């Protein structure tokens, strides 16, 4: 099962886009916690794409697609910006960075999803959540 949504780079379009996408995966037997994490990662990836990727240029678009397989759900968010180096984002969970107010979106995606890959110089992110409990990496969140 595949589906996608496309929005122009306006923050106010994000909640509706997320609602439409979440509606399409609600029939999957996901735990409330998994759905929460997926929604949050969708939000963070879309906000980063609009804000940092397309730099609020309302002529530029963000595309979000979701692929659902038996054991996994893969979300791809792609903007039309120049990209970024996710390795260069300081870890906000380090004690010295705890009061920093940026970088937490990238970090949350890394921690809450099971596999995360940036592509096209960082202008796209592909994130996977295993939905088959045996493949799930739930402990990862507690190890954070």
């Amino acid at each position, binding site marked *: 099962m595949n589906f996608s949504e496309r929005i122009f780079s306006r*923050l*106010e379009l*994000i*909640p509706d886009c997320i609602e439409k996408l979440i509606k399409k995966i609600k029939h999957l037997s996901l735990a*409330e*916690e998994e759905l*929460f994490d997926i*929604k*949050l990662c969708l*939000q*963070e990836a879309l*906000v980063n794409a609009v*804000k940092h990727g397309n730099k609020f240029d309302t002529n530029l678009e963000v595309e979000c697609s979701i692929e659902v397989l038996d054991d996994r759900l893969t979300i791809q968010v792609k903007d039309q910006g120049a990209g970024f180096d996710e390795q260069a984002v300081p870890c*906000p*969970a380090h*004690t010295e960075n*705890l*009061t*920093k*107010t*940026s970088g*937490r*979106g990238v*970090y*949350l995606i890394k*921690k*809450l999803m099971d596999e995360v890959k940036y592509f096209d110089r960082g202008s796209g992110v592909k994130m996977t959540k295993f939905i088959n409990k045996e493949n799930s990496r739930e402990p990862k*969140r*507690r190890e*954070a």
Partner: protein
Amino acid sequence: MNLKEEKRNDITICKLEGEITINNSAELRKAFDLIIKRNEKKVLADFTAVSYIDSSGLATLIEMFQRLKKIGGRLRFYGLDQKIKNIFEVTKLHKLFDICDTQESALKDL
């Protein structure tokens, strides 16, 4: 997101409700601005009715924490849903913020 304020002696209780996201964090920041302007230094964030928070919401809480700290104030949290508590733990913000189990213990702690 909705925010209602309540005073309990010198403590300001901020009852937050709904989703705290980039789409309403400016509103939250504005409410915090007024609290700082009124020189209220003891703030309790009641998260009982908060269903969701994103990184922008977290950043707004960090700003408030820092501003209160600067003027010798304190910020305490209580009523966090397990999923939100997990977000605080994953981001390690539970080490920065004081999260209390009950309103009573939070009030006492302030």
